[in-house]
Structures are given as C-alpha cells and as structure tokens.
C-alpha cells in the first residue's frame, strides 16, 4: 500500500510539473506579455525609454529559458510571486478567491448528486415503458445545454423577475446557491447517465428477478440492491466531474460576477499574467490528483469485490 501511495505521489508530481511547463510554454507563444499589456496602455502616457526600463526591471526581455528557470526556482521555493496586472501577491489573490470556488463546487456537486439520484429514481421506477424511455433521454439533452445560457436564464428568472435572491452585493453561501444549482444541472447529466446504464445492467441480472419474485418492493430493490452494485462506476465518473466543475467555474463565475478561481484564471489568461495562471493551474491539478486518489481509495470501501481482489493480490 505504501509503495502504491508513493508511486501515485510521484505520478502526481510529474503531472504538476508537466502542467506547469505546458502553461508556461503556451503563454510564451502568445504575442506580447503582461508587462506590455499593462504598461503600453496609451492612457499611462509612458515614453519608449520608460517602457524599456520597466521591461528590464521585470526581466520581461530575458530569454524564455531564463524566465522559465526563474519561475520554476521561485515556485519550488514556495513563492508564487506577484501578479503583474494588479501588483498584488498571487498568494493573496488565491486566498481571496478560493472560498468562492470551493463553495460553488460544494453546492454544484451536492446539487448534482441530489438531481442525479432523484432523476435516476424517476427514470427507473416511472410507470409505462415509453415514459421511462423518454426520461432516459433527458440527461443527454441536459448535458448539451450551454452552461452560460442556462445561467443567464436562471439569473433573469430567479433573481431579476422573481426576485428570490440578489446576484450582486451578496457573499458567502448565499452567493453560491443560484450559480451552484445552475451548474449542477449539466454536471448531474454524466452522473445520471453512468448510473442509469450501470443500474440497467444490474437490473437485468437474475438475482433481481429472484428478489422481485420474493415480493421486494421496487424502491427497496433499487436502494438496497441495485444502488450498491451500480455505484462504483458512478464514483469513478464523479472524480472526473471535478474537472467539469473547474471548467464550469470559469464560465459560471464570469456570468455571475463571482470572485473565484475561475474568474481569476480567465483574467490571468486575458492579461497573460503568468504567475497567477500558473498558481491556479498548480492548485487545480493538485485538486484533481487528490480527488481522483480519494475516489480510488474509496472503491474498496464500497465494493467488497475490489477489497477481495486486493487482498488476494497481496497474499
């Protein structure tokens, strides 16, 4: 088990370094840089001499390799550097931004699980075969709805028309509810799809017929027998869904004007603010690695078959 954890950790470090390097390369090949974006603004009225002084002080004209060595060395030393655009330490920006995204992730993931659970129950237990078939199409459709459109409609109806929750001037969990639930809809779609197809496979198995013949209620069959068997693939997918939440956060936070990591990332890309973007990438990749590791670790707990295989392998 220790060896397994060590090898996973080594893999994670490799992934982190790869993402770090790739993001640096991508920002390098874009024309211009953050110093140029910030200081060649004609509103500042800087002379060519002043601009070249500023560029020199930031090391903006050093070779890409020297710059890479510098940021890598700084990052390894635990320093995230300063945002060129805002002049604020990156760590302060992250500290201000992460709670928003965390709350968004919790609400949208929790909402997605509840949506997926209630929808799957309806799709499996609804009377009439055509109705069940029709319900089964809905998750596919839901995953096709553009998140930004869904969110704009949600804002217009829930906030502006029904006036249930304000979208500006709110903070904390209150600010996460509407965007979180809107984001939950597309996120719940893959969860529902994977769970439904796994559940169908389980329900086609003979032991379900036996249970039915012995008079177990459909709801009991679903929750006591189908659910535990259909959960493992759904759990695997939910690890991947984390990536979707991060990607969704960029759009959602922009639409709702939330000050989370997604909006920070979007601004960092626009301003080519390398230090900020790389810090966000490191955090996202680390989060992704940790979540998938947790999912892997949870598998044996919920599925006795995996537990047995691992024990057998170790013997």
């Amino acid at each position, binding site marked *: 088990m220790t060896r397994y954890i060590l090898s996973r950790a080594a893999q994670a470090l490799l992934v982190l370094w790869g993402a770090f390097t790739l993001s640096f390369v991508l920002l390098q090949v*874009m*024309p*211009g*840089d953050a110093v*140029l*974006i*910030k200081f*060649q*603004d*004609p*509103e*500042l*009225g*800087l*002379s*060519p001499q*002043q*601009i070249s*002084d*500023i560029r020199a*002080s930031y090391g903006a004209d050093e070779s890409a390799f020297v710059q890479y060595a510098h940021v890598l060395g700084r990052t390894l030393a635990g320093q995230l550097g*300063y*945002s*060129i*655009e*805002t*002049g*604020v330490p990156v760590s*302060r*920006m992250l500290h*201000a931004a992460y709670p928003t995204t965390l709350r968004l992730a919790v609400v949208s993931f929790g909402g997605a699980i509840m949506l997926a659970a209630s929808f799957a129950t309806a799709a499996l237990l609804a009377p009439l075969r055509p109705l069940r078939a029709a319900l089964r199409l809905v998750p596919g459709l839901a995953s096709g709805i553009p998140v930004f459109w869904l969110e*704009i*409609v949600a*804002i*217009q*109806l829930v*906030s*502006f*028309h*029904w*006036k249930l929750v*304000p*979208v*500006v*001037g*709110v903070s904390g969990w209150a600010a996460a509810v509407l965007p979180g639930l809107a984001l939950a809809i597309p996120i719940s779609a893959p969860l529902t799809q994977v769970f439904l197809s796994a559940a169908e496979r389980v329900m086609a198995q003979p032991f379900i017929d036996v249970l039915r013949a012995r008079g177990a209620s459909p709801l009991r069959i679903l929750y006591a027998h189908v659910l535990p068997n259909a959960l493992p693939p759904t759990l695997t997918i939910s690890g991947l869904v984390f990536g979707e939440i991060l990607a969704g956060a960029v759009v959602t936070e*922009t*639409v*709702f*004007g939330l*000050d989370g990591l997604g*909006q*920070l990332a979007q*601004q960092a890309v*626009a*301003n*080519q603010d390398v230090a900020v973007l790389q810090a966000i990438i490191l955090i996202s990749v680390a989060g992704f690695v940790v979540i998938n590791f947790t999912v892997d670790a949870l598998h044996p707990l919920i599925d006795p078959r995996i537990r047995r295989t691992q024990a057998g392998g170790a013997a």
Partner: protein
Amino acid sequence: MLHPFRAVLSSSRPVLALAACMAFHAPAPARATDAASPGGTLLYLEKQPHKNLYPPAGGFYPNGGILAQITDRLTWQNTDTLKIEPWIATGWSVNADSTVFTFTLRPGVTFSDGTPVDAAAVALNYDTFGKGNRALHLPPSEVINNYERSEVIDPLTVRFYFSKPSPGFLQGTSVIGSGLVSPASLRRPLDEWGDARHVIGSGPFVVRDEVPGKSVDLVTRPDYAWGPEQLAPQGPSRLAGVRIIVVPEDSIRIGAFIAGQADFARAVEAYDEEQIIRHGDTIYAASTRGVNNSVVFRPDNPLVADPRVRLALLHATDRPDILRTLYSPNYPLARSVIAADAQGFVDHAADLTYDPALAGRLLDEAGWTMAPDGWRRRNGVALALAVHEALPQPQSRSMLVLLAQQWRRVGVRLTILSGSPAMTVLDNLNPAVTPLFHAEVGRADPDVIKSAFYPTNRNVLLQKGGQSRHVEHFVDPELNGLLDQVASDTDPATRLADLARVQADILAKGYSIPIFEEPQVYAGSARVHDMRFEAVGRPVFYRTWLARP
C-alpha cells in the same frame, strides 16, 4: 435592417422578454443598504475592475471612479462654467508667461492617515506627477507639460516652475490625474498602487477594504470639511459609504440594477436606456468634453497615405445612420474633432457630410478604380483596411461593422479585428496592420487635443517619434507645431485661435472621422439624489444621498 441589427446586439432583451411572459408577482426588492447608518451605503455597479490608483492613471474610468471619491485636487473645475475654482488651494497667482504658479493652501486639511496636506506634501505630489519617479516606476502625468521643479515658500504656500510656458497647468491641477495623495502613498512603487487600500487621499471617502478585481468598500470620512464650493455645504458626505462592485457582464449589471439590487450603474449601453427609463429610473449622460469618438487614420500605411483616400472615406461614412441605428439622443453627432461643449470648439459640420458620390470621385482621382467584383483596386492591390475593436468605446464592434457596410458601398473593404489585449496593443502600434484606430480622449481643456495627437503623447495617428517602432516615415511637423502652440500659448484668445487651426488642419487633411460626442452613461435608481459628475463625467458621490426605500 435596423431592427434585426438591434435585436442581435441587445443581449439582455430576449431573455427579459421571456421572463416578462411569465405572470408572476414580484415581491419587494431586497436592498443591500446599511439600515443602521443615517445615509446608507450606495451600491455602485462598475463594468471593469480598477487597475491602478496612481492618480495620473485616473484617465481609465474605473480608476477615476475611485480616485474621484478618495482624493481632492488643488482646484475644482466648475462643471457649468468650466472655470477653475478654489479647492485645496484657496488662491493662486500665475506669472505673465505662465512659467511660475504659486498656490496658497487651505489650512487644516489632512490626509486620512493624519498627515497634513501642506506645501511639502503638495510639492512632493507635483514633483512626482510632473517628472515621474523612475526608481518607483511612477510615470509623469500627461496633463503636466514642461514641469521643472517645486518650491515650498511656507507651510501653506507652494510654487511650481516650468521650463516653457504651460498655460494648461492650472486646469491640470483640477483633473482626476492630479489627485493629492499622502507622502506615504507616494513612496510606493507603481505595482502597489493596484491595491486600493494603499492609496491615502484627503477626500470625503476612505478605502476600507477591497477584494481584488471584485469590490471596493469606501466609507465616509466624518471629519471632512473642505469640499469644493460648487458642492457646498463643504462638510462630510451624507452617505455612510459607497460599495463598488464589479459586474463585467452587461446583461447582469443592468438587469441587477433594474431589479433593484443596486443604486447606481456605469456603462449603460444605448439599447438599455429605454428599459431603464421605462422602469422609472434615471439615465445620467455626462459629457466627456474632449476629443470625440472618432476613427482616425495612420497615414504611414501607404493605403491611406493619400489625403484624397482619407477624405473619400470620411464622405463615405453616413454618421447619422450610425447614430440612428446604434445610439441614443445622449450621443450627439460630432461636428468637429472635439465636442461642442469643449473649449475652443469650431463647428465643422459642413466638412463632415455624407456624400458617396464625392467619395467615389476622390477615390477615382487617387487611382483606386472600381473593379467588376465591386471592390476598388490600384495596380492590382485592393483597398482593404483593418481596424481593431476598441473595448472601452461603447458598442465599438457594432459601430465598426456598420462602418464596414457603408464603405462596402464605395468599394472599400474594412476588416474588424479582435484579439487578446496584448495582440490589440501590438497591432495598434503597427500602422501596416491597423491603418485605422478607434479613439476617444476626455478632458476639459484645450490641451486634450495635444494629448490625443502629439507623437510623444497618445499618438493616435502613429507619427514617428512615439512609442511605435514600426512607423517608417510619417510625421506632420505642421500639426505638431500647432499642437505645441496650443500647449504653450499664454494668451487664452491666441490659444483658442490655435486650437481652431488644429481642428481645421486635422479635418482638412482627413486624419480623423469624428463620429459622436462620447458621453459616460450611468443609471441611477429613483432613490439616488444630488448625483454630481466632475467635468469629464466621473461620478462624484460626495453630495449624494439616498431616500429611504
């Protein structure tokens, strides 16, 4: 064609219409005001986050919107008469050739960190704004020309010396870029001015907190007693504070405002004005009194080097059609290079007519003949131009698309470019890539025209001698000479006469196609009272008060 075009542009409308179809009674709006304090906190929705609060960077409206609340200036420009009136300076004298300015300061004024606003502090401010500070990366201010040095005469008297006549300096002391800040703030490098909490002014509001890129909280300074006379009584603000929240998405910002979630909003597009008025709220269109919203040429590019081509495109532009299609009556048709309420304005409406026949003749004369495919060519080269969308300008992209449609009729192709901010900056410095530029500069002084056109200032025509390294040969010594004179004429009448010559020169050479006089358009809810704006349209919340909901 008018209506479909508008429908596409109006992002918030289709959804609102959908929402309106659903009959659902709306409960009373939830207001984010501080009920405990006498005046309440005004909630102001900004379109963009501030970038840097070093006062000379205050030209950018989100920066200026904060600086206008937290800093005072030596003088106040009366928004009705445009006269310069006392503020932190109670009086001043200027020598005959406008090279020495002496200011007497109001006693008892302090920065919010407790340090006095005395001659030494004011001298340090102007030394920094006039010359910049290389070690701290602080650039000089574009409104202060020929600055030499300061002299502290006594604690309440300060004198400034200039190497050349600088008649624009007095007005320059009234602009947002000359906001006075404490010596402690002036010791910070440029980067640290991004954090609003670092900027200590003597204004009626103080920064309490900021969330980077998201919000800034201003609180009222209870001991404030030195507002400008035009905004009397000069005591503290009646508000408890102002909360500035950044909502970049137009439909959300305007939608939230209409839904009653905020008191005030900036950057209202023309197509949203109607629904705001219908809702019983107020539209404030503040003039920026400067160089009009214009499309300018970069004559270094051989395609637009011939004045006949530039004048042809001016006459191929149906400006009234642009205004009817995209804008509202708050956007007056431009009648010169500068706005009609700017100082020294001369009406050139007769030179700015829509005349496609004349445009065709001029292009023919210049050798650009119509090919059978409907595009003009000369020696096999098509007259194909490009311009970057200018994000700060209202509906820039739609305006340029309409322009392209109009020029299409005379056989000229216009491509509208868009790209990352860095891409836009780089392209706009290269006349070969962007023979055209979409520009506007606001400032209520004749110097504004120099700010826009002079090579070492914003250099909108891209002359040689400015920031761009791509300019091969274009330079116009005649225009630059006139601009220099406007900036250094000591006699106001001569100055205005030279300003008239500059306007005539720019239009006669076809350097610019002025489209409209650009307003800053805000929306205020019915409970906002006594809303004021400084001379170029930045909101001043100092006198504002909120009625009880």
